[in-house]
C-alpha cells in the first residue's frame, strides 16, 4: 500500500516537476489528433530548423534572465548582425551590391564582423547594467531603440538607399539553407549549429565558474558579492556571450531568409523571453536550465507551426497562442506552489 501510494505520488511529483515536457507532448498529440498527417519527417525537420536560430537567441537571453536581467535589444541586435553579414556577403555579380567593389569574402569574416558588433553592443549593455546600475529593462530598451537607429543608418545608404539587402552569395545561403543528406531527407545545418551552440552553453552553465556565478548573481546578488564573486565582470561577460549568440543567429537569419532589412529580428526578444519563461526560467533570476529553454522554444514553434499547419485562421491563431502560453505556464507554476 504504502509503496504504491508513494510510487503514485512520485509519478505525480515527476509530472509536476516536468510539466513543460508534458505540455510539449500534449501539444503534439493534440495536433496529431486534429490532423494525423502532422506526424511526418518533413514537419519534424521544418520545426527543428525553424527553432534553430530562435534557440540560439533564447539561450543568450536566458543567461541574462538568470542573472535577473533582461534584454529587450536582442531582436534589434539580430537585425544589425543580419544587415552587416548580408551586406558583406552579396554575390560578386549581383547588380545592387552595397559595396560594389567588395571582393568575395570567406564566410567566416562577415560572421565574425557581425558577432563582434553585437558582442560589443551587448557588452555595453552589461556595463550600463552592472556599473551604472541602470535597470536592465531600461538599459536594453534604450539600446533597442538606439540599435535600430544605427542599423537603419547602416542600411539606408547610397548607392541604393533603404533597399532590402539581397543577392546573397550562394556560399552564404547554402550555409544556412542546406543540410546533410540522411536517407531521403536532409538534416539542416541550422539544426546542427543549434545543437552545437546548445552543448556549448550547457557546458558553460553547468561546468564552469562563470555558470555558477551566473546563478549566484541571479539568486542573490548581495550574497554573491560577499561570496567573492566579481558581480560586474560576470554580468558583463554574460551579456557579451548573449551578444555573440545574437550575432551568430542574425547571420543565420540573413542566410536563411536570403535577405535582410533593418526590420529583421524585430520583436524576437519578446518571443525569446516568453519561450524562456515557458521553459522554466525565472524572471527574478537564479533559475533556469538549458533543456528547459530549448523545450520552451520548441513549444512556441510547435504552436506556431502546428496552428498554421492545421489551417487555423490567422486571427484565431493569436487567441489560441495566447491561451496556450498562459495555460502552460499556469500548470508549470504548480510546482512552485509552496503553500498548502
Amino acid at each position, binding site marked *: 500500500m504504502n509503496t504504491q501510494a508513494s510510487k503514485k505520488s512520485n509519478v505525480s511529483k515527476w509530472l509536476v516537476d516536468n510539466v513543460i515536457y508534458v505540455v510539449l507532448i500534449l501539444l503534439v498529440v493534440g495536433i496529431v489528433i486534429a490532423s494525423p498527417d502532422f506526424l511526418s519527417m518533413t514537419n519534424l525537420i521544418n520545426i527543428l530548423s525553424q527553432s534553430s536560430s530562435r534557440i540560439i537567441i533564447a539561450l543568450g537571453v536566458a543567461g541574462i534572465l538568470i542573472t535577473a536581467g533582461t534584454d529587450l535589444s536582442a531582436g534589434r541586435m539580430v537585425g544589425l548582425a543580419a544587415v552587416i553579414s548580408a551586406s558583406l556577403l552579396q554575390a560578386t555579380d549581383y547588380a545592387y551590391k552595397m559595396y560594389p567593389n567588395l571582393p568575395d569574402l570567406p564566410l567566416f569574416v562577415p560572421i565574425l564582423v557581425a558577432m563582434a558588433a553585437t558582442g560589443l553592443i551587448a557588452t555595453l549593455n552589461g556595463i550600463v547594467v552592472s556599473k551604472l546600475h541602470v535597470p536592465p529593462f531600461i538599459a536594453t530598451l534604450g539600446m533597442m531603440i538606439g540599435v535600430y537607429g544605427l542599423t537603419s543608418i547602416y542600411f539606408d545608404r547610397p548607392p541604393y538607399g533603404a533597399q532590402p539587402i539581397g543577392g546573397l552569395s550562394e556560399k552564404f545561403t547554402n550555409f544556412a539553407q542546406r543540410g546533410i543528406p540522411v536517407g531521403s531527407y536532409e538534416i539542416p545545418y541550422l539544426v546542427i549549429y543549434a545543437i552545437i551552440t546548445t552543448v556549448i552553453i550547457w557546458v558553460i552553465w553547468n561546468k564552469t565558474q562563470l555558470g555558477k556565478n551566473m546563478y549566484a548573481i541571479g539568486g542573490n546578488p*548581495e*550574497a554573491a558579492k560577499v561570496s567573492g564573486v566579481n558581480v560586474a565582470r560576470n554580468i558583463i561577460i554574460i551579456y557579451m556571450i548573449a551578444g555573440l549568440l545574437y550575432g551568430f543567429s542574425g547571420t543565420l537569419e540573413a542566410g536563411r531568409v536570403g535577405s535582410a532589412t533593418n526590420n529583421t529580428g524585430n520583436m524576437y526578444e519578446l518571443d525569446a523571453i516568453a519561450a524562456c519563461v515557458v521553459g522554466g526560467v525565472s524572471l527574478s533570476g537564479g533559475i533556469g536550465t538549458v533543456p528547459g529553454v530549448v523545450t520552451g522554444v520548441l513549444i512556441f514553434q510547435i504552436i506556431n507551426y502546428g496552428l498554421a499547419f492545421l489551417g487555423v485562421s490567422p486571427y484565431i491563431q493569436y487567441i489560441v497562442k495566447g491561451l496556450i502560453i498562459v495555460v502552460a505556464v499556469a500548470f508549470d507554476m504548480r510546482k512552485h506552489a509552496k503553500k498548502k
Partner: protein
Amino acid sequence: MSEASTTNLLEMQNITKRFPGVIALNNVSLKVKAGSVHALMGENGAGKSTLMKCLFGIYSMDEGKILFEGKEVAFTNSKQALENGVSMVHQELNQVRQQNVMDNIWLGRYPKKSIFIDEKKMYQDTVAIFKSLDINVDPRSKVSTLSVSEMQMVEIAKAVSYGSKIIVMDEPTSSLTENEVDHLFKIIRRLQSENVAIIYISHKMEEILKISDEVTIMRDGQYIATKSSNELTTDEIIKLMVGRDLSQRFPAKVNKPEDIILKVSDLTAETQPSFSNVNFELRKGEILGIAGLVGSKRTEVVEALFGIRALKSGTIELNGKVIKNHSPQQAIKNGFALVTEERRSTGIFPDLSVSFNSIISNMKQYKTKSGFLSNRKVADDTQWVIESMQVKTPSQKTLIGSLSGGNQQKVIIGRWLLTTPDILLLDEPTRGIDVGAKFEIYQLINQLAADGKGIIMISSEMPELLGVTDRILVMSNGRAAGIVETRETSQEEIMRLAALY
C-alpha cells in the same frame, strides 16, 4: 512566575504536516493555558515555526485539529487568525521596508474615515501604542532606515496592538540586546497580567527559564514533552531537545595564541557616522570576540576588513605586510572569510541547492585541468560540509531555502571553511541556532583556532563571548572602548565599556 489559569486557551492536537520529501510535523500536540508564557523548544528544523504557521493559517495541516477557546478552528489565512485573537511575531522579519512604520503596523486593518484612510488616527494610535510599550521609534520614519533591533521591536508592537488573546513570538530576541530583551520581558509580563497567552520560541536557554511558565519540547518533527519550567534545568531541556546529554555548554579550549598575524591600526570608515580610529591585533590561533551594543558598528568593522565597506584611513597589516582589501575577492585572496550577520539577505541563495550554497566561494578549487568544474570534487566538498557541520538536509540537491534557519547557517559556515581561510570573521555566527548546533560550532571555532587560524567573532550573547574567546574587543558607538582578556573580565566590565561613549 505568575499564576497561570488552568483552562487551556489553545489545544493543538495530533498535528501532522508534510512537505515534499519531509515530514515537518508528525503527530504533534500543544496545550497552552490562558495568561501563561509557553516556551516551544527544539533544535533547528524541529518544526517549531511550521507548527505555528499551521496555527496561523499560513500552512494548512494535513492531519489533526486545533481547539481555540474550546471551539475547533482551522484558519485558512492570516486574516482569520488575526481577527479571532491570534497574532504572531514572525521568525523572519516580515516588513514592507519601503513604507513607514505606521503603515506597517496598521497594514491589513487601516483605520478609515469614509473611504479614505485616517492618517491622523493612525499616527495617534501608533504613538499611543509605542508610548504604552515604551518604544522610541518615529511612526513616520521609513522601515528601511531602522536598525534591525528597532524593526524587531516594531514587529513586537504590531503583534501586541491586535489585542489578541494569544501571541506567538518566533525568536523575537534574535536581534535584540540585553536591555531590549528586558524591555520585551516587561511587555510580556504586562500582557500576561491581562490574561494574554504567549507562545515563545527561542534558542536562548537563559531567557526560557526566566520568562516561561511551561515548556514544550520538540525533536525532529515530533512531540517530546511538556513540563513546567519550575521543574526544569538548562541541562534537562538540552537533553530532551538533543536526545542525549550535553554536560557542558562550551567545549574546553584547546587553542594557543601565537604570533600576531593581523594588525589593524587607526581604521576609520569613509562614510560617517560609522567607526573611527579602531586599533587591535589578532594572533594566530586566537579567538578575538567583539562585543558591543547593537549599532556600535561592529558589523561595519568586519565589513571593512572584508572589503565591502570603504575606508577613509587606517592600515591593515597581514603578517607584517600592509594589505588592501578593496573587494571581497581581494579579501578572499588574502585569506579572509566572512560569515555575515544577515543570513537571508547576504548569505544564502534560497532557490539554489545546498551543494551550490556550499561551494560558491571556493569555485577555483574545483577546476580541473581543462578549466571545467569537477562534479566529484564538488560533491565531496558538499558532503564534507553536510557531515562536519551536521546539516540536516534530505540531499545535496535540496534547495537551501527549504531548510530551517539553523541548518542554513551551518551551510554558510561550511562554505567559508572550505576556502581554508587564515582569518575567519564571524558576525553573530550562532544567531538563531539551537544549543546542540551551537556546541558544534564552538567546537569548530576552537578547532580552527587550534589549527592556527585567527578568528574574529562578533556576538551579542555575552555568555558565548565569555565561553569561547581569548580576548574581547568592546565597541562603543563606533569606537574601540577597550580590549579585555576573557579570563580576567566579567559581564559587568564589558557592559561598562560598551556604554563608555
